């Protein structure tokens, strides 16, 4: 109906933009974090009539208010980061490893078991014991990661469902072990393992409470960054992630890369279980992973598999979580309120990625008139 010269341009057009300066990227992100804070502030005020600045101050205090809180925030950040680092290679090759929970749990179970049995004899010094526990957790996690990879490589099974179901198997194994190791008898909880001797607990390193957690995870973070960016394996993962056919064409064997990468991914998640048990909780339960295996997927994706950006995002998420506990306690805002705030902030971060990749062009009258 319309004649070609009355071309109707839409009100808003979206165009891909490329090659935005790095500082501009970060400026956009910063602006969106500010918008998120503003929106959350509006929400807080509208719903609770509390001064949003006071709530933010309380959140800050909850996460970083005392030396202990700072260290706890660091410890939990490292934990989340470790899992994110483990998931990065898998997700980069578009292998949907939603089985981190299970991989963490089997790593944790292996660690807790060795802690209990080696701690009883007290024949081993703590460093040797830690090494044995770490190796066991790596093997356990790797096995848990490789099983779905082998099935995908051989028979083309769906890895999302497979890894997810492996979680339930791991949870049942954990339940069984908790019943086996329960202490005191009849309690159905393991309680703290070796509370007196502290055998198998992470020692303080350089006088820092969670120094060892930081060292292990930062080493993994740097290692994974280099592995993904500069190694041949990393390149293969990237190509396979973009297109399996291209990878085949380039002479990459997808099945081999699947299995190898999932072994690494599972191993790091297993090691995260080791850190969770030996370096933080000193106990094992079905909630040892505590949903962090899923949260870490957000960490990995938001950071686009850049492990250093993951550090920032892990910190942000842990900060919000610690803040949530504090505002619940101070203002009786229960976790639903803090979940809303977390949601707003995550939503804005995702929105900022959109505005980094695309620009929005408003329909201009002049432009249309000249046509």
């Amino acid at each position: 109906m319309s004649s070609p010269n009355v071309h109707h341009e839409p009100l808003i057009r979206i165009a891909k933009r490329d090659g935005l300066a790095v500082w501009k990227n970060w400026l956009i992100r910063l602006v969106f974090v500010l918008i998120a804070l503003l929106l959350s502030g509006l929400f807080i005020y509208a719903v609770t009539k509390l001064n949003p600045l006071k709530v933010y101050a309380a959140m800050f205090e909850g996460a970083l208010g005392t030396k202990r809180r700072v260290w706890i925030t660091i410890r939990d950040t490292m934990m989340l980061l470790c899992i994110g680092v483990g998931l990065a290679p898998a997700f980069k090759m578009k292998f949907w490893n939603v089985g981190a929970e299970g991989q963490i749990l089997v790593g944790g179970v292996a660690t807790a078991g060795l802690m209990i049995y080696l701690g009883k004899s007290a024949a081993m010094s703590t460093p040797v014991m830690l090494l044995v526990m770490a190796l066991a957790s790596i093997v356990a996690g790797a096995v848990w990661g490789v099983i779905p990879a082998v099935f995908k490589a051989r028979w083309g099974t769906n890895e999302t469902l497979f890894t997810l179901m492996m979680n339930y198997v791991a949870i049942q194994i954990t339940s069984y072990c908790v019943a086996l190791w329960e202490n005191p008898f009849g309690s159905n909880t393991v309680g703290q393992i070796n509370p007196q001797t502290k055998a198998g607990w992470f020692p303080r390193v350089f006088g820092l409470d969670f120094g060892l957690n930081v060292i292990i995870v930062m080493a993994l973070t740097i290692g994974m960054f280099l592995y993904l960016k500069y190694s041949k394996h990393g390149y293969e993962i990237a190509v396979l992630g973009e297109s399996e056919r291209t990878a085949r064409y380039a002479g990459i064997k997808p099945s081999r890369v699947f299995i190898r990468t999932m072994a690494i991914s599972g191993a790091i998640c297993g090691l995260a279980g080791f850190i969770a048990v030996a370096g933080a909780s000193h106990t094992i339960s079905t909630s040892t992973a505590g949903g962090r295996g899923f949260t870490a997927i957000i960490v990995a994706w938001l950071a686009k598999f850049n492990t250093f950006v993951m550090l920032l995002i892990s910190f942000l998420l842990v900060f919000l979580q610690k803040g949530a506990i504090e505002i619940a306690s101070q203002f009786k805002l229960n976790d639903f309120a803090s979940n809303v705030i977390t949601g707003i902030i995550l939503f804005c971060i995702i929105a900022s990625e959109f505005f980094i990749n695309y620009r929005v062009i408003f329909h201009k009258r002049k432009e249309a008139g000249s046509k």
Partner: protein
Amino acid sequence: MKKFLALLLALVMVFGLVACGSKAETPAEPEQTTEAPAETTQTPAEPAPEEPATEPEPAEEPGTDIKIGVILVHDENSGYDMAHIEGVTQACQELGIPMENVTFKYNIPEDETCYDTAADLADAGCGIIFSDSYGHQTHMGQAAAEFPDTIFVACTGDLAAGSGLSNLKNIFPYTYESRYVSGVVAGMKLKELMDDGSVTDPYVGYVGAYPYAEVVSGYTAFLLGIQSIVPEAHMDVQYTNSWYDPVAEGEAANALMGRGCVIIGQHADSTGAPSAVQAAFESGKVVYSVGYNIDMLAVAPDAALTSAQNVWAVLYKATLEKFLAGEEIPTDFACGAADDAVKISDLGSSCAEGTQEAVDAAWAGLKDGSLHVFDTSKFTCQPAADGSYVVDEDGRVTSAFGLDSNGDWVNDTGEAIVDGYFEESVLRSAPYFALRIDGITELN
């Protein structure tokens, strides 16, 4: 252009709404009331600025200068945790401790978060810290070792005595007493049903969480309460292996009703079993429910008879009183009917005639000590295979373990049978009656 205008209009309306919404409610709420307590809790180190915000409390009143921490496994939406919140609140009110001095920490899981939180509360200057869930206790112990000047009370815990820590404590009410009395209520109903001929077999079912002493002690007391009215009553127990699993509890109740049980008791924290019983009742089955923790009349208005309940305020108050007075707090503290630390909820409309009188008599007996729940003349056991107790030729228990904390079948402390009854919750606050008496069958 039209679209743009529409968009603009929509935006203006949204902002207008937000502005109106917030403006309309602000004048009603004076700013200071919401912010003043926030400020005081935010600066816990300085108690001085708290005074103007709180009621004019005399400064020398004991309790105004102490700080209390409470660690809860869930929040106010859980009946169990709500009972603890109410308990602490009531105890503080009675002792004149302003609530600003109490810090609640909600949704603290039974892992290192509990230790972190306990240590954090101790950092903030809390002199006494409570945790409400069983699994918190070892993490409380870790904090107790680190802060020897702070008192840590793990409610429902059982490790304090053996921990070697002088500042780790356990408290637990005599829940078995309220279970016995709730059993009396069920027994009265059962007797009524048998008298009018609608039931011939006094068959009772029980949905238990785990096969542990706390549960065994509870269901045994429940059956003994029923047997005090209907001596030939017998019971089946179905475990769910979870403290909170509405679906499994409902299924267990259905399985028990399928076997012919006419009374369903429970030791699990959800409303699954009473709901299932109510559904069966509505479909014409003769079956009634006895709950735990909360009044079940809301979910089972016809089928619920009563619920066994704990009154945590009594235990909190007793503990805090000693703490305020600077007295030594006992490592294990338990009390019951005599101190009103246990009760049953209001009787449902289906309860038999004369129930209230029977209940009052039972409470009176428990209070004056003439009635003992685990009277050895009232039950029999098969000879023990593991040597944890001794029976005479009639099956009456003459001697039994007090505590066997590590499962090695060695008596860790004293004799439990005193003056012809099993003395529950005296050697330690958490229950340890784990005898399997005749008349009870564990189905799984």
